[in-house]
């Protein structure tokens, strides 16, 4: 047993590091207090955060007025960082994504329906062979109200599936494709490049968590195009059924942003949804993304 999988030693690790984790709900989410992310972190603190992330799946930090360099340094404690094939980055910082509802276009009622896929339930970059391990989002510019981010626990979603569905999906795989979400928002030239550089990837419908080994439902509305190995009609219905399950409020936690808040989520254990309810106000967030080291299995 270690701090990651054993609740008691997790609490010891938190105590040693001087951190307090306040759960936001019964399933996932905890607010972390007791640290300043503008400063380098002690190894004991990094260990406690890693353990806390595995346990709570998403961690919330308030009032962390970090610089871009601080943001990157924090991310690197947990692994290498990656950029994104489509989303813009902060000038001078290829590791920091600049995320807003319409990618810098002026949002109008006409553009709203086509605004980025963040207001659909998804796990980040599942079109990659090794989807990212974690995302670290900081608020840069917040609307006066609205713009919450919700996270859902995909282990709980899996656990509550009817047994016959679990039997059905055991061993099934599904295709994930960047074109399904980003493909229609880029130029034809970029589209052709994405087709070359990011061919669709196949992942198991149920993945084991790289740390806990727990089973997670691993299909999402944004990137999963089809379930393989079944007749078309059956595959389509099954995928529609599975991607709906995450919408039940019991699986979710809803985070209300505040200036300089930071959210750190386990991308192997969750889906998330950025609520687009603040138009015509602006909302800009910045993301550092920690690479995944394993292909889902």
């Amino acid at each position, binding site marked *: 047993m270690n701090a990651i999988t054993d609740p008691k030693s997790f609490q010891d690790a938190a105590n040693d590091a001087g951190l307090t984790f306040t*759960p*936001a*709900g*019964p*399933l996932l989410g905890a607010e972390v207090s007791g640290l300043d992310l503008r400063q380098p972190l002690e190894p004991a603190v990094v260990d406690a955060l890693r353990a806390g992330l595995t346990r709570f799946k998403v961690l919330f930090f308030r009032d962390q007025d970090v610089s871009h360099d601080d943001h990157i340094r924090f991310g690197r404690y947990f692994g290498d960082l990656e950029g994104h094939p489509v989303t813009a980055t902060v000038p001078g910082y290829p590791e920091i994504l600049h995320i807003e509802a319409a990618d810098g276009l002026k949002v109008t009622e006409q553009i709203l329906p086509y605004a980025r896929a963040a*207001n659909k339930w998804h796990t980040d970059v599942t079109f990659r062979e090794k989807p990212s391990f974690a995302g670290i989002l900081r608020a840069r510019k917040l*609307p*006066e*109200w*609205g*713009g*919450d981010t*919700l996270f859902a626990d995909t282990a709980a979603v899996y656990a509550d599936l009817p047994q016959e569905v679990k039997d059905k999906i055991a061993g099934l795989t599904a295709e994930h494709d960047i074109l399904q979400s980003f493909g229609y928002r880029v130029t034809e030239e970029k589209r052709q490049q994405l087709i070359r550089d990011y061919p669709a990837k196949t992942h198991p419908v149920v993945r084991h968590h790289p740390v806990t080994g727990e089973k997670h439902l691993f299909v999402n509305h944004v990137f999963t195009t089809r379930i393989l190995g079944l007749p078309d009609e059956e595959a389509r219905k099954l995928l529609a059924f599975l991607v709906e399950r995450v919408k039940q*409020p*019991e699986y979710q936690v*809803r985070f*209300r942003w505040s200036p300089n808040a930071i959210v750190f989520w386990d991308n192997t254990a969750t889906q998330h*949804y950025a*609520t*687009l*309810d*603040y138009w015509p106000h602006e909302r800009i967030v910045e993301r550092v993304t920690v690479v995944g080291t394993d292909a889902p299995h």
Partner: protein
Amino acid sequence: MSADGHLPIDTETSETQLDIQRVGGRIGAEVRGLRLSADLSLDAVQAIETALLKHKVLFFRDQHHLDDAGQEAFAIRLGQPQAHPTVPVREGTRYLLELDSQHGGRANSWHTDVTFLPAYPKASILRQVVSPEYGGDTVWANTAEAYARLPAPLKALADQLWAIHTNAYDYAAARPDLSREALEKHRAVFASTVYETEHPVVRVHPQTGERTLVLGHFVKSLKGLSTADSRRLFDSLQEQVIRLENTVRWRWRAGDVAIWDNRATQHYAVDDYGDQHRVMRRVTLAGDVPVSIDGVSSRLVAPVPPAAA
């Protein structure tokens, strides 16, 4: 009326200025620094009513001074309290409905209160008495925003639809986790008298003039459609109502009070607190009979009203 069909609601006209913090982008506001009681000034009561029409659900923290009698007395300032049509009131009170997790008081499916009656409540005032350590949030959805944001062809379709609402809806399908005993108890109490009412799917709000979608889990079918068509169409309209953009989620503390406009919202009590104890007490205020966009009123279908029998 503004171009999008909304009556402008001006919260500045009241003399009492409430300290209001919006919670969601399109629904929900917290009112701070107000002690709810029967003794509030007329101005304060009007300010609450105005804010309620605008934000659809209002939250008040730390109302620890309220007891059952205090909650009922405050409710009278906002309207005419009304006991639930089938569930007995809490002992020693005139109108209070108690929702106790130890006695099956869970409502984790989207609904508007009591829509199986024609004149369903205009508002509900809900107080948390016993809080679980965590979990047990409530989510509300704004049914006026949901209508306003439908594409024009879907509005035209919804405008013509009528739905049959009943308290004998398929509770067993909605709550597969319940024991047979609990289901029997539910049928024997909640559905002790079976009501059926026809409501327009689009209701004109009697105070704001906004059009709202009247759906939720008491809907049995859409009038004049096959079961399959009815189900599909219901699902796609209901999905518009509960889009996360139209919702607000409240994390309760004991002593919190929420008041919602039951004519412009649906809600969902999140059932994620396991065996922890959670007690809520609710007073509902009498509402009027919904009217469709072309002026036709909802009507009771069952039990057959005496005049028609």
